[in-house]
């Protein structure tokens, strides 16, 4: 048998075919995602769920309603498309006038809900779906066997890809949609019914996802979590292709599938990481992806909630209240819960420094938390370092990682920034899974707590609690001073208008890098402390869902506010702790709370509070002095 680099040719062909088929799914899926992203500016986290709805829907139609494959191939996308339109009309539209980030967060919540409900209905086992009788069997190509159904998948996706590309690039629609993402008000003022158009686009994207789902049903595992698994790969594909480029999404989809297939033949362990490696490589060489020419349009930003007046006294009073509250809380609440919440709160605050004040939303912040955790655990367990040194080592490692990652990431902005950080985080995850020191799936367990500075025994629960409290309050205090400092002010200015900040003489890159490193170090501190508390460092801390969770906490509480992330983490941790008895419903409830929070108080709980108070303050001011409308320029010199 012929071999290449020791791999049998037949295996290589088989993997290649598998790669191309996966590529076809990736292409169809990322196409919908790219359309929604390019036209609405929303990174649609519900895309995986919509795909899953297509596949599970086909199964449901067949088994309950007796509707076969061919009708389902038309019906399912229609139903899911209609569902998408409703979602857009009644949920996403409410945040369409503010930063697209909020739309993204809503889809994030929706994905949780849909997946939870489907898991409740259909369980999490695989649902078998037979290949339609017309396409059973296959043809022998001489060097390999090609099943008909697989050939059909490739043909069908190519057809759909072409149609979509044509509808958007070759008609006026594309220009309308792109313009509407930039300034939808103005496009409306030109006489275009933007709301209906957006609704149709989202519906269309959803239908594309469902179409891919039905195509996948006979050959992939149909189950309610199938969407979540494929989702971040699809994101990477869209970014590789270049945001906003339909052609790019299609080509990158096939490219990613093939790369994955080949890696499976040569080095199977890396097959799930290779797409991210590819993405990182492409973005470093071509900062806007393969076909992305478009520089990201300036998103309409929500301004940071701020009080019209606040006194130093008020600030310290609030901080004091929080400190005292947390100090006596263990008398009433489970200390383990409080400690967990505090470490997450510190993590969220660190994330908030970048996301809120620097407007750099990273999708990979878990890498700092996790890396620091592993280093601390290893240092404490294998080297026997005392906890303060172990924590220091963990924090330092996160800072160094932050320096490297920051150097790569801060050269881009917006979604590209988020995606590069995600790619790096996926590589860290891969390392954590593969390196012998990290213990793979098991992680590093029973990490000794040891004695602080050699004499303060941390195995005493009270001491441990006080130690965590001190770390949290220290970190919080540092951050709150940081954002008021001149450094913090400049950071906010860069967030607003980078060229202007440069023209005032600030090296904006250095400020962003510094912010990245500080944020990474504090996340590391949180991760290290967490390991000392829980005595285990595991893969969950470097998984991308952890990065998602920190986004959730921060935005729930109020991004760009001091206390928001703290409150957000307590709420999320509390939900996870106290709702866990409800089983499958936890994700549904979590998603629902998240969606409701964004819809009702989109500045987050704390942000909404601040806005309310400051509106009243302003009202008072206004009654005090009536402002003249046309103030004059007075030349004083």
């Amino acid at each position, binding site marked *: 048998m012929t071999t290449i680099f020791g791999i049998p040719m037949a295996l290589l062909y088989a993997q290649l075919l598998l790669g191309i088929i996966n590529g076809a799914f990736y292409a169809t899926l990322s196409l919908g995602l790219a359309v929604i992203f390019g036209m609405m500016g929303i990174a649609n986290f519900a895309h995986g769920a919509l795909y899953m709805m297509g596949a599970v829907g086909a199964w449901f139609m067949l088994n309950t309603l007796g509707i076969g494959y061919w009708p389902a191939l038309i019906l399912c996308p229609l139903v899911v498309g209609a569902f998408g339109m409703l979602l857009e009309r009644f949920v996403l539209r409410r945040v369409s006038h503010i930063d697209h980030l909020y739309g993204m967060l809503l889809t994030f919540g929706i994905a949780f809900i849909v997946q939870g409900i489907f898991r409740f209905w259909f369980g999490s086992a695989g649902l078998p779906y037979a290949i339609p009788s017309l396409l059973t069997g296959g043809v022998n190509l001489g060097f390999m066997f090609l099943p008909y159904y697989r050939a059909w998948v490739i043909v069908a996706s190519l057809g759909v890809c072409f149609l979509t590309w044509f509808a958007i690039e070759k008609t006026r629609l594309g220009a309308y949609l792109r313009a509407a993402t930039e300034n939808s008000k103005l496009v409306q003022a030109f006489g275009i019914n933007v709301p209906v158009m957006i609704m149709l686009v989202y519906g269309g994207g959803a239908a594309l996802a469902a179409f891919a789902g039905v195509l996948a049903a006979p050959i992939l595992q149909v189950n309610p979590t199938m969407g979540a698994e494929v989702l971040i790969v699809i994101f990477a594909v869209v970014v590789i292709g270049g945001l906003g480029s339909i052609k790019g999404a299609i080509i990158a989809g096939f490219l990613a599938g093939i790369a994955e297939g080949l890696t499976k033949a040569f080095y199977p362990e890396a097959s799930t990481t290779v797409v991210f490696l590819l993405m990182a490589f492409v973005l470093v060489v071509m900062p806007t992806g393969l076909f992305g020419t478009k520089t990201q349009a300036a998103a309409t*930003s929500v*301004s*940071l909630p701020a009080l*019209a007046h606040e006194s130093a006294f008020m600030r310290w009073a609030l901080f004091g209240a929080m400190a005292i509250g947390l100090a006596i809380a263990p008398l009433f609440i489970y200390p383990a819960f409080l400690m967990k919440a505090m470490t997450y709160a510190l993590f969220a605050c660190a994330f908030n420094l970048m996301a809120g004040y620097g407007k750099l939303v990273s999708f990979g912040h878990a890498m700092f938390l996790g890396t620091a955790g592993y280093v601390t655990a290893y240092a404490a367990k294998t080297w026997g370092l005392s906890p303060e040194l172990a924590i220091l080592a963990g924090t330092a490692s996160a800072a160094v990682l932050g320096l490297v990652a920051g150097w790569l990431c801060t050269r881009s902005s917006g979604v590209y920034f988020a995606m590069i950080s995600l790619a790096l985080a996926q590589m860290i995850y891969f390392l954590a899974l593969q390196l012998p020191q990290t213990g793979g799936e098991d992680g590093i367990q029973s990490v000794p707590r040891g004695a602080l500075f050699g004499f303060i025994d941390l195995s005493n629960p009270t001491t441990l609690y006080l130690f965590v409290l001190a770390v949290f309050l220290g970190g919080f205090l*540092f951050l709150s*001073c*940081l954002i*008021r*400092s*001149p*450094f913090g*002010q*400049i950071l*906010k*200015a860069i967030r*607003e*208008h980078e*060229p*202007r*900040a*440069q*023209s*005032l*003489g*600030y*090296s*904006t890159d250095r400020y962003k890098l510094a912010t990245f490193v500080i944020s990474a170090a504090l996340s590391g501190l949180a991760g290290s402390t967490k390991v000392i508390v829980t005595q285990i460092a595991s893969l969950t801390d470097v998984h991308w869902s952890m990065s998602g969770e920190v986004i959730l906490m921060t935005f729930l509480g109020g991004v760009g506010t001091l206390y928001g992330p703290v409150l957000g983490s307590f709420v999320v941790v509390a939900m996870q702790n106290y709702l866990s008895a409800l089983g499958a419903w936890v994700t549904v409830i979590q998603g629902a709370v998240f969606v409701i929070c964004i819809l009702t108080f989109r500045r987050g709980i704390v942000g909404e509070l601040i806005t309310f108070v400051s509106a009243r303050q302003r009202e008072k001011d206004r009654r005090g*002095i009536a*402002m*003249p409308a046309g*103030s*004059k*320029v*007075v*030349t*004083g*010199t």
Partner: protein
Amino acid sequence: MSIAFNGFYAVKNVDFTLHEGALHAVIGPNGAGKTTLFNLLTKFLQPTEGQIFHRGVEVTALKPAAIARQGVVRSFQISAVFQALTIRENIELALLRRSGLQWRLLGNARRDKALVERTEQVLEQFGFTREADIAAAELSYGRKRVLELATTVATDPSVLLLDEPMAGLGREDIDRVAELIQTTAKGRTILLVEHNMQVVSRLAERITVMARGQILAEGPYSEVSSRPDVIAAYTGGTH
């Protein structure tokens, strides 16, 4: 100096000297390359060919922020203020660097007496005292332009590049801003792009006329503005 975008020369073989202490205006039809010249001088664009010297030292390779730190500060044609920040904060930002506070991670800029005083001065000078604590986004377009000028002047630059400072300003503001530019010009070098010819004739000692990326004429205002080729390219007859 030249720069090309996809083969289109926006600025082509321009030799340009700005003398210390001068108040120099660049005029020219739309798309002549004036803003591009500014972008080149402040390094927001990298020239395809050519060199730039500041006080005899080559600065062609520097970054925009480094140029600004040498005292060469620009304003933008399409207004650039920090929208979400208050007017006071906008001005403080311009002042922070000069006060050497820009890398302070802790502490509050408002504790710095000199900075606070200077901020008040600037607010007063530009008539923002009463509006100091509202967000810049709430200003009307014209007032935003004034704010941008205020922050640019506040950095106390030695060379000031102003891109159409009068655009969008009301008549009453134009006179005041012109006066302001005149006062600021003492001891500084100013390069001005402007389409308002009354302002140019009043302020500028020398003018350069650009057209199609090249320099058409240069010299004292009265001399240059009456040249027939300039009239044909720019003013279009009596004005």
